[in-house]
């Protein structure tokens, strides 16, 4: 493949995320360097988190991969990767697990580390899965009530009560 800006062979394949549309660029090393440098010059002194994330994805993903990634939705809170990437805010605690692979390099970029070494809750770590399940059940409850499926709603209510009851005793 030839470079889009000159006749040399294209060895850099860049996915640009600046606008809402994805832009695939195929450039030779010289043109790629120039392209990335002019981008850098416009970056603020302290780069924003979404900016860092976009930089990271630009170098690691093809446009096709990114489309697939953007469409992935957390089964607990329903946030898509695209929504996270644009707002810069995650939807629920489970996103750290569900989008873990994408978040890990971002965390290293932002913090220089990816493992917590500080304080931990005094009462010990609770059963995170049952807490997360509560988030999912409450969401499902709203959906089935909207669909007027009251039989399912009753089941979900009982499940929520059971988990909440366990939490109270713990």
């Amino acid at each position: 493949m030839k470079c889009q800006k000159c006749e040399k062979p294209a060895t850099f394949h860049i996915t640009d995320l600046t606008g809402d549309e994805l832009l695939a660029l195929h450039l030779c090393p010289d043109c790629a360097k120039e392209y990335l440098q002019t981008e850098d010059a416009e970056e603020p002194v302290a780069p924003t988190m979404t900016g860092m994330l976009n930089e990271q994805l630009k170098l690691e993903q093809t446009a096709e991969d990114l489309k697939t990634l953007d469409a992935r939705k957390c089964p607990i809170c329903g946030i898509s990767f695209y929504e996270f990437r644009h707002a810069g805010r995650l939807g629920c605690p489970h996103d750290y697990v569900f989008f873990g692979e994408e978040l890990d390099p971002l965390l290293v970029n932002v913090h220089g580390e990816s493992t917590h070494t500080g304080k931990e809750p005094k009462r010990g770590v609770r059963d995170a899965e049952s807490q997360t399940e509560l988030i999912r059940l409450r969401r499902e409850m709203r959906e089935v009530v909207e669909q007027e499926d009251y039989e399912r709603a009753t089941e979900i209510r009982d499940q929520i009560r059971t988990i909440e009851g366990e939490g109270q005793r713990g």
Partner: protein
Amino acid sequence: MLINDMASRCGEWLRGSGPESDIVMSSRIRLARNLADYPFIQRCTDIDRANIESTVRDRLEGSDDLADLTFINVADLELLDRQFLVERQLISREHANSDGARAVAIDSNERCSLMVNEEDHLRIQVMKSGFDLDGAWDQIDRLDDSIEEHLTYAYNPKLGYLTACPTNVGTGMRVSVLVHLPALVITKQIEKVFRSLQRINLVVRGLYGEGSQAMGDFYQISNQVTLGKNEDELVKQVGDVVPVVIDYERKARDFLINEQQNDLFDRVSRAYGTLQNARQISSEETMFLLSRVRMGINLGLIGDLEIPKINQLFIHTQPAHLQKLYQSVLDTDERNVERAKYLKGQLKLGRENAPDQN
């Protein structure tokens, strides 16, 4: 009502005491925490938000060790009262201006505040007058433990406390020191200091947080990283650099005294004169002039005024405070006139009450 009682007082961060209080106004630590069984704010429905608020309130209000906290429903407050809490640094601008169920709990000394439904479900904050990060950490650590007795936090053994924004994950901790650096501004060295702080991963902001102007030569220095370092290391990271900044500011003040004495005296005296005699004055100009007078007092150039008085003027001349003291809503022009009157009266009063200076 609580807010009206607060108006006549100053609050912890303007007490003007504590170590290095001529340059360090206050030391502040905040912790970001989320409940494990609710989505982060971004994905919360109105019902979720209301449930989070009532859960936090119900569980904490009834507990003995947190009895000193008073809950205020921020969503029900008038705009003026919300601005008032922002000016006192008890809530963020974002918390004041957002929508939906939200609250703040404040202790009687205004040292602790607990925002409910800000960017995270909980934003716990402790403030200390002067340079006292260890004291602030000690207090907030215990407060966090007490809260955790009643609520289950979103926590993951590898990533620590889970936050809505990945830039806060881990400790969820921001350590900030509010410093007054007029001499570094006058000698134009402030940018150089900031650049060197940024190089070691520290953030510099204006008085009222992210994106705010550096009013009255006040700057907040805080950590950027929250993951991979423990709380003591983060306190040390900020704590180690503050004495260096204090030293730069003192050297700049010495330089002004030794090399530009006439200029310095002139700046300070003109500032004091304007504050005493203006007939209308904006909040920005007031901050700018009070900053010079504050430095003048610390350098012994003004003998008939004390630092706590100046700190009180800094807060009481802010738009919402002025309207609270005046007990009425004022437009910008009216505020500028009332602010000038207030300053005139207070500065006259301050001089009459001050001990004789020769």
